[in-house]
Structure formats: structure tokens, C-alpha cells
């Protein structure tokens, strides 16, 4: 169970939001909506523990994430605006390093298979800077396939993807939810995701 209570966020002089809260059960997904600059990204970063809220508390399984620390990070997968890829490394190297940082040893063969599943077969040994924007995004999204983190925090995951990839990604998120996972996401597009219990949180400024 993932809960947030009375969250407030201040950036410089601007009070982005206050008194924000929600509760997410297994298989639940939360759509965060709001205008540009309303603080969606700030909220997502607060939820995964990158930044601290001005007030309020976030609890994972009833325990404050400020107290759990690194242990909480095992349960979260965060996908931000950046792809978090090194341009000079190959797709495969990037994948293996990302896995290693999550404390998972990944063989070259497994990595290649994973990249094949996101449509990058034969491009494993290519440096990321030679890939197109959409291909880079898909390398970043391949993390969703092997991660065992129950909570996915996805910031605009459908950006820079073609319609086929959007449907594919929606399917992946649906599967994750059916398996008892949770997801918090922001999206400009209306994307149908099957499975899970949907909630919407609107940040009004």
C-alpha cells in the first residue's frame, strides 16, 4: 500500500500545491493531471524520494519513506523526462549497467534478448547516440520488462513513441498492474490501459 498525506511543494516563490493526498492499493494506478508547470513532475519526484515535500508524509507499507531510505528504492522504478542513458555506451552496456545499479547481474545474452523484445534486435552493439529518439526511449523503457519493483513512477512515458509502441507500453503497464503492481503516471495523451483500478489526481493551481 502506498499513501501520501497532506503533501505541499514550494519552488522558489511559487506554491505549486498543498494538502495533496491519495492512497494506492496493489493493482491501483494513479493518473496525475494538471496544466504545464502545475507541479506534476515535482510531485512524481517527491513520490520516489528524489526531493522532499515542504509538508506531509509519504508511506510505503505504512512506513514513512524518509525513514526507510535506500530500502524504499528497491520498490520503486522511476522513469523521468531523461532517458538516463549514456550516449557513448551501447544499448547493451547501458542496459547491463542500469541492471547492475538495481543490484541485478545481467548476462549479455539476456540483455540482447530484452533489447530484441523492445524492437532493437541487431542494434545492441550500437552506441546510443546513433539511435533515433524513439529507439532511445525504447531502450529506457526496457527497464520495465525486468524490474521487480512493485511501484512504477512514470513521467510522460508515452512521449516520443509511435502508436504501435504506445499500445505495447500500455500493455506492459496493464500486465504489471494485473500482477499486483502499482503505477503513478502523467500523460498528455489519452491512452487506454487495461487492468488495474484507475484514479485521477488533478493538481489545480
Amino acid at each position: 500500500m502506498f499513501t501520501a498525506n497532506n503533501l505541499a511543494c514550494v519552488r522558489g516563490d511559487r506554491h505549486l500545491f498543498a494538502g495533496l493526498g491519495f492512497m494506492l492499493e496493489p493493482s491501483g494506478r494513479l493518473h496525475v493531471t494538471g496544466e504545464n508547470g502545475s507541479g506534476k513532475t515535482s510531485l512524481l519526484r517527491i513520490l520516489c524520494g528524489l526531493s522532499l515535500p515542504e509538508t506531509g508524509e509519504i508511506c510505503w507499507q505504512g512506513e514513512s519513506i524518509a525513514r526507510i531510505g535506500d530500502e524504499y528504492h528497491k520498490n520503486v522504478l522511476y522513469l523521468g523526462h531523461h532517458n538516463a542513458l549514456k550516449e557513448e555506451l551501447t544499448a547493451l552496456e547501458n542496459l547491463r549497467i542500469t541492471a547492475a545499479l538495481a543490484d541485478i547481474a545481467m548476462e549479455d545474452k539476456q540483455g540482447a534478448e530484452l533489447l530484441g523484445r523492445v524492437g532493437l534486435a541487431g542494434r545492441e552493439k550500437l552506441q546510443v547516440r546513433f539511435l533515433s529518439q524513439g529507439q532511445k526511449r525504447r531502450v529506457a523503457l526496457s527497464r520495465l520488462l525486468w524490474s521487480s519493483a512493485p511501484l512504477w513512477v512514470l513521467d510522460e512515458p508515452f512521449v516520443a513513441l509511435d502508436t504501435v509502441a504506445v499500445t505495447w507500453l500500455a500493455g506492459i503497464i496493464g500486465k504489471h498492474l494485473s500482477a499486483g503492481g502499482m503505477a503513478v503516471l502523467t500523460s498528455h495523451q489519452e491512452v487506454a490501459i487495461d487492468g488495474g483500478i484507475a484514479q485521477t489526481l488533478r493538481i489545480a493551481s
Partner: protein
Amino acid sequence: MNGVAPVYAPSPRGALGALGVLATVIRRDLLLALRRKSEVLTSLFFFVIVVSLFPLGIGPEMALLRTIAPGVLWVAALLAAMLSLNRLFASDYADGTLEQMVLSPAPLGLLVIGKIMAHWLVSGLPLVLIAPVLGLQYDLAPRPLAVLILSLLIGTPLLSLIGAIGASLTLGVRGGGVLLSLLTLPLYIPALIFGAGAVEADISGLGAAGHLSLLAGLLALAGFFAPWATTAGLRIALE
């Protein structure tokens, strides 16, 4: 609930442990340095050029060059280390990989130590290796030369450690490069004093052991505090 079955899991999956994570970070940064050779070579050339400029400004008198050699080499090493600090965290910060490191279940301090070690291997160790050649330009005798190498060997990791604090604090800040030198150079002074002092003490027959052990003491102190301060700096930068 402790983990959800992955959508697709490559099997088998073993955990790496702390040392494995540390090795991954080091290997990653070394690989990156290898792919961006020019950046690494720039600071090495900078070191060589700065050291070679001094005789041109001061005059080729060997006795004078011998006396200023330790100071010149150390100051040049300081500036060269400075030059490479900017990119210690900057590119990771820009492409989002730093965020993922903070969110990794491995302790951030460990990852920071890995990055600092890689930074030393890439930009500190080459300085130590090229220093004997430059020392010969200044007509240093074999013994002082050996002490110089030893002092640089202990001192350059210290520069990387202290510099990492400054690099984390100035991350994404306007005018970060100049600010970084303003913050870091004063903190480098003890390293400079003991490092160059060791060589001078050896030349004057006082023995370099005292200086070198103080330098090693500073290294131990920095090894303890710097990763902590850097970690705190990174968290603040990402907030």
C-alpha cells in the same frame, strides 16, 4: 508484498553485492573515458604545457628550476585536477543517470566512491605517471623525483576527493566552472603544502617521511568525510 513478478524476467538473476556495484560504477566511468579520449587527454596536456611554460617565463637557470620544481609541478597538478572536475558529475546530471543512481537501492555513498576512484584513475594517475618526465626537465635528482612521484600518488586521490565536494555543490549552478575553482582551490592548500613540502624537505635533507605521513593522514580524513559531503551535495543538487 516484497516485489512483483517482472513482466518479463531474464533468468537466472543473481545479486551483485556492494563490491559488484562499486566495480560496475568504476568500469562504467572508465569505459566512458575511453570513448571520450579527448577530454582525458586535454587535462593531461594542460598539465604538461603549464609545467613547460614556467622555465620560459623564469629563465633556464638549472639551480632556480630545481628549487621551484616541486611547487610548479604540484600547482600544475592542482590546476589540471581542477580542470577535469567539472565533468565528474555534470554529464550524469544532464542525462538523468545521476537521478537513477540516487534511486538505486545501493547506497549512494558507495556509488560516489566509485565515481571518485574512476576520476582519479582517469585524471590523477596519468599526472603521476607523466610527472617523472617533467621532473627531468627541471633537473631533479632521482631521489627527490621518487619523493615527488610518491607525494603525487598520495596527493592526487586527495584532490579528487576534495574536488568531488565542490563538483557536487556547483552542479547545475550558473557559472559553475569558475565557482568550482573558487570553492575548491582554498581547500587544496594543505595538499599543496605537504605535497610540495615533502620534495623540498627531501632536497634539504630533512627527510620527507613527516610530510608524506601527514599527507596520508589528510587522505584518510578526506576519504572518510568527502564521500559523505559529496553525497549530501548531490542530493541537494537533485532536489
